[in-house]
């Protein structure tokens, strides 16, 4: 006996729908994922550009005193952050005779260890920010902000009102 076609001219194309649909879904899914990934990378790059621009302004001199720091904060740092559309915080920390990179940015004391003879208080110096931080809203951007960028630079600060010691300028930026 002759074997006829299974369904018909149109029905014979039904099995091909599955790989075609799979291909279309795969392609559209890839495009959607790639777009999301590019957007995330762009957002991260924008934040880093903003942090770098703020850092250039904050570190224009090798010495940080409170009066000029706050003036710089209002006249140049805040407008720059606004132009890059980033939230930011710039913290000057005074270590004086050593440099402790492990100290949390918004803490006022160093946490180098209980046996460390160099532990000291009054480490946190001036802060410049365009949003509430720490005591203002209980939010520590160095730990809690997603995709925050943190840059640390050395500087010189007044210690004990007499001599100039080592300090750090920490720039944190986030969206």
């Amino acid at each position: 006996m002759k074997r006829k076609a299974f369904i018909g001219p149109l029905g014979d194309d039904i099995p091909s729908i599955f790989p075609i649909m799979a291909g279309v879904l795969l392609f559209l899914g890839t495009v959607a994922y790639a777009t999301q990934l590019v957007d995330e990378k762009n957002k991260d790059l924008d934040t880093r550009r903003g942090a770098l621009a703020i850092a250039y302004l904050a570190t224009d001199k090798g010495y940080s005193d409170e009066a000029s720091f706050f003036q710089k904060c209002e006249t140049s740092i805040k407008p720059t952050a606004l132009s890059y559309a980033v939230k930011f915080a710039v913290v000057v920390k005074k270590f004086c005779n050593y440099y402790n990179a492990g100290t949390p940015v918004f803490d006022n004391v160093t946490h180098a260890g209980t046996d460390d003879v160099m532990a000291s208080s009054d480490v946190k110096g001036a802060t410049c920010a365009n949003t509430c931080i720490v005591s203002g809203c209980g939010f520590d951007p160095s730990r809690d902000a997603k995709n925050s960028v943190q840059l640390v630079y050395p500087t010189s600060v007044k210690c004990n009102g007499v001599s100039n010691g080592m300090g750090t300028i920490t720039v944190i930026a986030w969206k």
Partner: protein
Amino acid sequence: MEIRLKERKGQPALFDGIAFLLICSFTSSIVYVAVSNYGDQENQAMNSAHALNYMQTVMKSMYYIDASQLSRVNDVKAYPPDSNGVSHIDPVYVDLKCRQLSQYSGEVSVADLLKNDLNDPNEVNLDDMYGNAPSPGLTAMRCTMKELMKPFVLAGYDYMMEVLPTNCGKSPCDPVQIPKNSEGWLDKITDVWNGTIRTDRDVNGNQIVGGCDYVQENFHNTFAVSAPFRTINLKTITNPGGPKYIQTSANYVLRICIWPSREKRDRQVIP
């Protein structure tokens, strides 16, 4: 054959569908590869900008940091062993003898000590002396760099700092010499002490290979920052009509270079 074709009418369409799926898969893989590399170059450029800005900030800070504030850097007495007898002093740096800087209280900066050291009337070199008087410019620079370059050292980089004259009659000039001490190896401003960086004369004995020049020729991903450094010396000349003062100046270039370390060092560094 004709009978077989009639029996298999759905196969060409199915084959087209599978071919379409393969093309979509290939296109998707190309998109994934392209997206994975997106932003890498700009990311690298920004990393470089941050590193260069950091080194420039180190050079600016030198002019303000008082030497006496560095007296406790890498001090064995300041970092006694813990209750288990484990010493947390950085073994790579050993003892930089920073505590001698405590005698320079007041507003004597690291740059001031360095200028005095370079202005040595006897010979221009970094020997912690100004004539017969101590002027620990080299020691102050070592202690400063040890602290301020800590983030890069902890990240796996090595660094070197050198002072280059500008009036030697050739370009580039050889770096200012640092006499070796009795231990024979603390003759560079760097965290690399095992002789990886050559600063000796070449086979002709005429040219000294600069530390940062050697680094840029032999290592990858190096960064170097240079800054002008001027010293002014007031000399007294005995004159029949009375003492006469002559002011002379010498121009130098301070250069810092960093590169990814090739060494695996077992160190316990206090953060």
